[in-house]
């Protein structure tokens, strides 16, 4: 890098750098914590930013991987990961089935009706789970879905569908109408045109919706904690805080490792699809 480039970019680094440090610090701290032995972590004489091995530490050398391997072998962590992926994947499918046609139709509906239905759907996204979990928990028990992952599969689309319809509406609006007209001229029906022409070009947008739908499911805490009571049926967001904290005993290293793994994976996905997300988000009701 040349000196002038450094100077012209200097201001960006000067501003972005401190923000990045503050925002990412908890994750740096999680990595450091996850690798320490108990003897190292709970010794107030040690510098917390360094790894210090004490002679005769029953856990041996610090840093160590034993607390990370603990969550994989001694807890239901893998099960929670599986449960989360299972619920997330099913919800993604349900969401796409419902939201793709709706998003497309709303993007093409001109006039006030389309506009108000679109906005109406979006507004339901503002009704929070914290308001709905009480009545829904009664409904779930009436349906006999208590303590089953299917209860989450049923309930999560209530917040993923509105959000996805809105994003998809934004993406579909950016696709020129002539494209499907041309396809229909060639003898396609509207549905085949949709399936063969429109959906394939919207693939990046659809993938974005998949990612955000999935992460909304991973994030849910309220429904998962009210509907699920058996440890092996839990999802990540609830399993980690309820099972790795036993009364007053916190398995800090394992807790940190359990948090890091899904966070970093999701952040990589987010960052890769960020520009697409921005496009859909601002294109939704605001264009």
């Amino acid at each position: 890098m040349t000196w002038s480039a450094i100077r012209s970019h200097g201001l960006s680094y000067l501003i972005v750098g401190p923000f990045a440090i503050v925002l990412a610090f908890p994750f740096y701290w999680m990595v450091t914590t996850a690798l320490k032995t108990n003897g190292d972590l709970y010794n107030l004489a040690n510098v917390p930013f360094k790894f210090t091995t004490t002679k005769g530490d029953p856990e041996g050398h610090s840093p160590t991987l034993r607390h990370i391997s603990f969550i994989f072998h001694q807890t239901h962590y893998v099960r929670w990961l599986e449960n989360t992926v299972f619920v997330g994947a099913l919800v993604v499918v349900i969401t796409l089935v419902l939201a793709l046609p709706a998003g497309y139709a709303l993007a093409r509906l001109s006039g006030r009706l389309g506009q108000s239905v679109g906005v109406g759907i979006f507004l339901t996204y503002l009704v929070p789970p914290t308001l709905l979990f009480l009545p829904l928990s009664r409904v779930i028990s009436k349906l006999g879905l208590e303590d089953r992952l299917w209860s989450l599969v049923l309930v999560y689309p209530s917040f993923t569908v509105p959000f996805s319809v809105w994003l998809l509406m934004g993406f579909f609006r950016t696709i020129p109408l002539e494209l499907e007209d041309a396809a229909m001229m060639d003898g396609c029906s509207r549905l085949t045109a949709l399936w063969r022409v429109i959906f394939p070009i919207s693939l990046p947008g659809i993938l974005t919706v998949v990612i955000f739908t999935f992460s909304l499911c991973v994030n849910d805490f309220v429904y998962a904690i009210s509907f699920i009571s058996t440890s092996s049926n839990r999802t990540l967001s609830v399993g980690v805080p309820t099972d790795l904290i036993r009364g007053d005993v916190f398995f800090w290293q394992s807790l940190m490792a359990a948090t890091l793994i899904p966070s970093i994976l999701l952040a990589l996905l987010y960052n890769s699809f960020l520009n697409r997300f921005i496009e859909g988000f601002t294109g939704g009701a605001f264009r």
Partner: protein
Amino acid sequence: MLIGPAVLFIVLLVGVPLGLAVYLSLTNATAGSLTGHWVGFHNFVDVWNTPNFRTALKNTIVFTLASQALVVVGAAILAHALLRPFRGRWFLRFLIVLPWAAPVALSTIGFLWIFDSQFSVLNWTLVHDLLPGGGHFYLYKPVNWLLGGIDHLPFVHAGKVDPLNPPQWLGQETLAKLSIILVQAWRILPFATVIFLAGLSSIPAEVEDAARMDGATGLRKFWHVTLPLQLPIAVVALLFGIVFTATDMTVVYVLTNGGPFNSTQVLTTWAYQTGIVSSSLGEGAAVSLYLLPVLAVIAILMLRFARKVEVS
């Protein structure tokens, strides 16, 4: 026809429970039953008269406004700095979106550890000599000097950091509230930055050029050109932030669980406490329904701004 299934699903899973919530709030239903005796607005009055509810209501408002004020200022600065490409932007952006991507319940546990009563890394940094080889640089000294300055302002009693008895972040009322505000701001900031970024990059290049031709630079350009064009989408980001914070239960539940002595309860945790833990379904529903007017106002504001963006 294409919209039908989606609308039906939403009505069934949002509309019906919402109606049920309203119905429950008007009865004396308890856990285990879906029905109860009609009690009218009794629950709303009862709930309103408990001190814990008042605290929860006040906290919800204070936490939301304070954290979103931090978010708006931070996001505005950060979005401007991230707009132009520079080397390493992908990586820095990755670090910045981390708090947004991480599941809230789990990242809040990270803060539980950072604010730990005995092993808090913040406290360690405050009270230990940070210069190697006995340089005698203690962070709590400049911090106390700053706090001493703040103490002269009206209505503020900042206190001091005592190196022998470092702050109990989650055990003391004011600090616990501050911690919650900081965590909420931390987790919403990336989202707001991304939306601000979208607003900034949607300003057409011609407008920028025209402004430059007219000799508008720096602050003047920002005030007369960038700000008015960006305002609507910034407001949308703010409204989202308000909704996310006001309706969130996770951060308070994990961080303080409403404590110490119910001083950090918010509406959502108090609804959970009353409705699920204490099994008074009707009262719990009433508590959470107090959120509805706030959300209605926000919805109206959003629609206003949505229309404004369309016009411009």
